């Protein structure tokens, strides 16, 4: 027996919660109008910064919720998974993702929303996405070295910068509110 602090997981309950979160996420994206490629592309022309504002809102709500629910003892943050950081592959992935988003006008989440609301471009982006996943899987052997390079583990801003969680929360809220205000100012009619 090792590591007594590690216990089993409840995968069935976890899956049910994931399905619920996914449905809520999709509904929120649809209500925000993000199933429309025009709205997403407006981002790059400075005419419609809805995506930026939705993302900033989501980050602040999720972060404040996690932080304060942890403080109140409702949520055990030690059991919340933090995705690992792999610097090089994630930088490359970010560039590929950004290029794909600019070309398609949709990202993975919004393409599902677009497809579900009957848009052909959403379906095309989803097909492209799954084709990309398939090709990456088939070509994994030569990609493996990059895939496993520069691992940094589950890195958080707090651990990386060596500052308390509360200070990170304050900084992110300040950045988000400032970003929100700036976005409102630079938005101009199409």
């Amino acid at each position, binding site marked *: 027996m090792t590591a007594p*602090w590690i216990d089993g997981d409840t995968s069935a309950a976890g899956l049910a919660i994931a399905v619920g979160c996914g449905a809520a996420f999709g509904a929120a994206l649809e209500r925000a109008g993000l199933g429309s490629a025009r709205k997403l592309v407006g981002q790059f022309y400075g005419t419609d910064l809805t995506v930026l504002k939705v993302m900033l809102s989501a980050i602040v709500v999720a972060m404040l919720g996690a932080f304060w629910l*942890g403080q109140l003892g409702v949520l055990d943050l030690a059991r919340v998974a933090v995705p690992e950081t792999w610097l090089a592959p994630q930088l490359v992935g970010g560039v590929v993702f950004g290029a794909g988003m600019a070309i398609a006008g949709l990202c993975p989440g919004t393409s599902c929303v677009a497809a579900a609301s009957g848009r052909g471009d959403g379906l095309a982006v989803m097909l492209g996405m799954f084709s990309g996943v398939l090709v990456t899987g088939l070509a994994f052997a030569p990609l493996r070295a990059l895939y496993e390079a520069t691992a940094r583990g589950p890195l958080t801003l707090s651990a990386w910068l060596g500052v308390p*969680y*509360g200070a990170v929360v304050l900084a992110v*809220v300040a950045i988000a509110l400032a970003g929100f205000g700036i976005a409102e100012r630079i938005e101009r009619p199409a």
Partner: protein
Amino acid sequence: MTPRPWRRWLAGAAALAGALAPFAGSPYRRAGAEHATASATATATTTIDVAELVRVVADQEDHVSAVELAGWIRARLPGLRVIDVRSASEFAAYHIPGAEHVPLERLTATRFGADETVVLYSELGVHGAQAWVFLRALGHRRVVFLRNGLHEWLDDVMSPTLPPDAPVEAEAAFARVAELSRWFGGSPRRLTGGPAAAPAAPRRRGC
């Protein structure tokens, strides 16, 4: 866009919740004080609770097997950090997938969250065990070392074998390990009888 007053209220609520956050302490339950203690004493001289360490070692809570570690990595155990304490060249030659390179000399200056499970490993386990003592002395509680180091990983996860005369229950265990091994790109093998049945030397990539 028409300004809506409730947006100002929401922004104000977010600003207030954010402004109070630095004064609220760590959001991690039970572990906050422990984390602060561990960080504050990272460079200080500390006293080891020998009796506590003896109990942990006697209860075999100090180490992890390679197969168990592989299961944690595959299950994406929240907060898992696998730390390779070997040299940079050894790390570059081969390391456990997802491992970070933190040599012994940098270990005590490295911050580990109280919510994180730290697994230390070296080539054969000795330096990993010593690193375990260092981190325990600094107050980290959720730390274990890989029992026989990277060699155990290579033998039991990357190149597991099943002897020809293995009992039935070993078959089932091997099937589980073999599936885990393939997930990491390993080569599980069932040995056949005869003089050639001795396990082949495991691959030592850069060790």
